[in-house]
């Protein structure tokens, strides 16, 4: 298993995809923090936490990263050579999940460093109560959990669909159209992927579950997609 994870990590490091998403995350984080602190004028603890809670938006991006990465295996037909030296689709998928989890976490660290490096000095100049250690933990640590699990969820989605472009489009539609629409129905939206990520990332705005429950919901979504992907992938012919 270790060797498969090593192989998947080499794959991740040797294309520009992960680097591109890391750069995208840095820019997105910078933009969110600057907008919410400079234009949003945060004064309350909740506002200030929101300014640092970039994990929610970044999670959506890293979900797409996982989808792109898993979908690329089908698009560029790189599954066959891997399976010919290391048979066992389930084990390969598990290794890819771990590798993308590690990559998601690493990109999450970039996100947290950028958010805190820019956000903390800016927030220090704002009036109102200061954030406590638990607030920093919730936004920093929670953000890392959200982006890591979301990246793995993306791998599940990309593997399940097995075609990169439809998988990416489907994910975008799901996240940015269908899930927001679920807000129209009472008590449903907090169980969506997006709202779970929001809660885990430390943002308390909107209809969200408590942190622990949100983690369970996001993990459940991930497990559901990964299990479905494993079942479908084990029956799929490599073409």
């Amino acid at each position, binding site marked *: 298993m270790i060797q498969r994870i090593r*192989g998947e990590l*080499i794959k991740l490091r040797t294309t520009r995809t992960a680097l591109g998403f890391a750069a995208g995350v840095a820019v997105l984080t910078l933009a969110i923090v600057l907008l919410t602190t400079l234009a949003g004028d945060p004064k309350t603890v909740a506002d200030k936490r929101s300014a640092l809670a970039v994990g929610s938006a970044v999670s959506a991006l890293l979900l797409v990263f996982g989808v792109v990465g898993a979908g690329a295996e089908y698009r560029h037909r790189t599954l066959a050579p891997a*399976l010919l030296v290391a048979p066992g689709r389930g084990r*390969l998928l598990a290794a890819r999940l771990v590798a993308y989890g590690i990559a998601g976490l690493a990109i999450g660290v970039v996100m947290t460093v950028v958010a805190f490096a820019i956000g903390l000095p800016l927030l220090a100049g704002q009036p109102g109560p200061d954030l406590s250690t638990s607030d920093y933990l919730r936004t920093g640590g929670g953000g890392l959990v959200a982006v890591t699990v979301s990246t793995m969820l993306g791998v599940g989605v990309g593997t399940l669909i097995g075609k990169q472009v439809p998988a990416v489009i489907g994910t975008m539609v799901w996240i940015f159209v269908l899930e927001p629409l679920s807000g129209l129905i009472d008590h449903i939206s907090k169980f969506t992927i997006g709202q779970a990520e929001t809660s885990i990332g430390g943002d308390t705005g909107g209809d969200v579950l408590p942190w622990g429950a949100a983690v369970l919901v996001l993990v459940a979504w991930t497990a559901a997609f990964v299990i479905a992907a494993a079942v479908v992938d084990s029956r799929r012919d490599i073409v």
Partner: protein
Amino acid sequence: MDRRDAAPAIVAEGLTKRYGPVTAVDDLSFEVRAGAVTGFLGPNGAGKTTTLRMVLGLARPTAGGATIFGQPFAALPDPARSVGANLEVCGMHPGRSGRNHLRALAALAGLPTPRVEEVLDLVEMREAADRRAGGYSTGMRQRLGLAATLLGDPEVLVLDEPANGLDPQGIRWLRDFLRGVASEGRTVLVSSHVLSEVEQTVDDVVVIHRGRLVQSGPIASLLTGEGVRVRSPRADELASALARDGAEVRTEGDVLHVQGRTTDQVGDLAFAIGVPLHELAVEAASLEEIFFRLTSEQDDEGTAP
């Protein structure tokens, strides 16, 4: 030990693959001798790649199965060191260099990284190895695919149309490469739709057409029995004697084309009846002709009412 007596390296039994109403591979059974180079031949669309995908666990057979050294491919204890395979379905990420592609595969297989440099040397690709694969020519991709098959220094090589897209120089290189791996005693199963590419290299052939087995066995068995060409000033006399003896004879002036008899048998018969011979030779049709005949026979069967 004679390799012919050894257990076969690959056994396919009743392999069948249906896609809806289309039967791509139809109850296909064959064996690949250990230590031999076997040509897996058939026209494009005959079902060669589908068969190889099923043998290597990349596609699920609708019926039947295949084993390598007695086990399904996925159950081999050390697959990368047992079998190296390059199929048409093996791709490369266009943004990843050839060297990194191989490094990832070596890691996945648990093979040491320095092995990557060795296989790059074997396929003479070291210089281009750091370029992104998206810019590689078909020939370079084929070489890198071959490099990947050699990573585990495997006993069995399965190569799917390795000559596709190669220029004449590349084909010559491939031929030398195949001779090299064959001389090391490896088992090779190489598919091709162009017989001349493999004719000089293979020991055995498995010919399929429309997903069905047409012929399998040593390549010599395909060539022998093809017929005897005999020229005689008393051809008619010899033709009747041969016909009485049960041989199939076609007359063309003073030349007879005899089926079902060896040159020895024809020569002996001519001597026995006192007919002089001016020429006696094995009439070896080219493999190409045999191939077309075999496959068109099946076409005829397929279209018969």
